[in-house]
């Protein structure tokens, strides 16, 4: 994967199991968001070689919509805003593919992200929402979609510390509801709640394994960057 002629992802080898919470950790600029965008197939993030096998099928050539219909979705690090679109309608969009959604299910999704339904259902997903509110609504939209693979890009950023617990419990709920979760995070609490973690550095997955070990390794050996242990091999 390159951007403007610069290789950003190199020889990524990553496996996420069924109903697994898998966290991706790594320094700023390591390529985590780029990996998320490539998996989702966003414009400008088309992969160059290799394959993205999802449920036994290579989805690397599919459009965003086609990937989403197979059950892959993405929550952006900084979610878009939609002028004039009501929270209620936004949350219903993802559920169209699985036969729609009831008002009660929409409310339940909002409660899961700790937003009072009566206060938010009729609000616009627009400028008037704070960054943190918008992030929560983004996560609620992932819940209502019931994806097979939820890619969450820093669901914890911009969320107050008190609410971190809720984000962790939300990720667990996604798993209980049958989703695999690939979560990009800088927070140990989220890594700790994962089944597995991978460490990313300069566009490669350096190692995968037990989340606590990976997290410790990242803290002690990667900052400051220790080239002796992490010479990224260019492929």
């Amino acid at each position: 994967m390159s951007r403007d002629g610069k290789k950003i992802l190199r020889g990524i080898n990553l496996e996420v199991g069924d109903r697994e919470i898998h966290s991706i950790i790594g320094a700023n600029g390591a390529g985590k968001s780029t990996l998320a965008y490539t998996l989702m197939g966003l414009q400008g993030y088309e992969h160059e070689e290799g394959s993205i096998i999802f449920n036994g099928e290579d989805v690397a050539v599919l459009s965003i919509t086609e990937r989403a219909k197979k059950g892959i979705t993405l929550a952006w690090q900084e979610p878009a805003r939609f002028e004039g679109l009501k929270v209620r309608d936004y949350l219903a969009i993802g559920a169209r593919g699985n036969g729609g959604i009831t008002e009660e299910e929409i409310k339940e999704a909002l409660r899961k992200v700790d937003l009072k339904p009566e206060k938010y259902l009729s609000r616009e997903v627009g400028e008037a929402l704070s960054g943190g509110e918008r992030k929560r609504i983004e996560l609620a939209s992932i819940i209502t979609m019931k994806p097979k693979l939820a890619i969450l890009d820093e669901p914890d950023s911009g969320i107050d510390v008190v609410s971190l617990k809720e984000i962790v419990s939300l990720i667990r709920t996604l798993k209980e509801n049958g989703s695999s979760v690939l979560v990009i995070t800088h927070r140990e609490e989220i890594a700790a709640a994962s089944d597995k973690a991978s460490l990313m550095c300069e566009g490669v997955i350096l190692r995968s394994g037990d989340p606590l070990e990976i997290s410790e390794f990242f803290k002690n050996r990667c900052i400051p960057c220790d080239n002796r242990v992490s010479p990224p091999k260019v492929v």
Partner: protein
Amino acid sequence: MAQITLNALSRETEDITAAYTAAGGDAAVLHNHGLASLVVSGNKVLSANGTEGIVLEKKETEYGVDIKMTIKKGYKIPLPVHLCFGLVPKDGIQEIKMDFVAEEDSAVELIAHCTFPNAEKVIHKMDAEMVIGKNASLKYTETHFHGPYGGIQVLPKAHIKIEEGGSYYTNFSLISGRVGYLEFDYSVDAEKDSICEMVTKVYGKADDKIKILERISLNGENARSVIKSRLAITDNAESMFRGITEGHAPRARGHVDCMEVIQGNAKAEAVPIVRVDNPLAKVTHEAAIGCVDKKEVETLMARGLEEDDAIDIIVKGMLA
């Protein structure tokens, strides 16, 4: 003969009522005698119903109707007044002249639906002179419903004077059906402590042409205004927006905001103009023309929508 006229009239009433409903109006309100309403089809007044505090005079002319509506001093009309203007046949001319006065301390909301469901060669002209008296308030929303043929010219022109402490809020929307040719020309004189908000929302398709000219002159101290325009154009449609706000008095505050989304071969031009000749006045503007935001589209696609449906939802949201 009288019998025939009556039949013809009642059929026209039925037609316009159906068109009114299609335009999003609630037909029941037109027949509710507790609510003030006025229904004009072509140059015929099909029904006119005033309520306490509202004086309604109307005169049929060759191509339309002259209307004089006065909200009497001190009357706050509790329920909106419904207006329906339209032309059901595929061709014709409709000229509405409107003389509106909201007397001192009065308040009213007018909800107008303009419906031309079959227009192939129709001209709809509206000339309005409106006076919002001292501390009076007028809320005016006008929703258009045009058919699919595009052969319509809509030419609304209004001059509004808002006297001291008065407020005027207007929302013009033309989203359903083809625009045809629209030339919207409103100009406002705002006196001391008055408030003016003007919103236009238009969706142009095929070879529709949209011209929007809005002018607000903040003449009095502390007068405040917002011009907000949301235009979406696609195919070969063209739009031209001019929003002018002039600050002539201390602490006058104005803002011009135009956002346009273009797709296909559509062409858009937006010119916000601010003029200030009083150092204590402040007028600001913003204008943006662009395609639909990529992140918004990709977000909806990542929830399973096709690209076209995603764009449609985003555009409709902007125009909502």
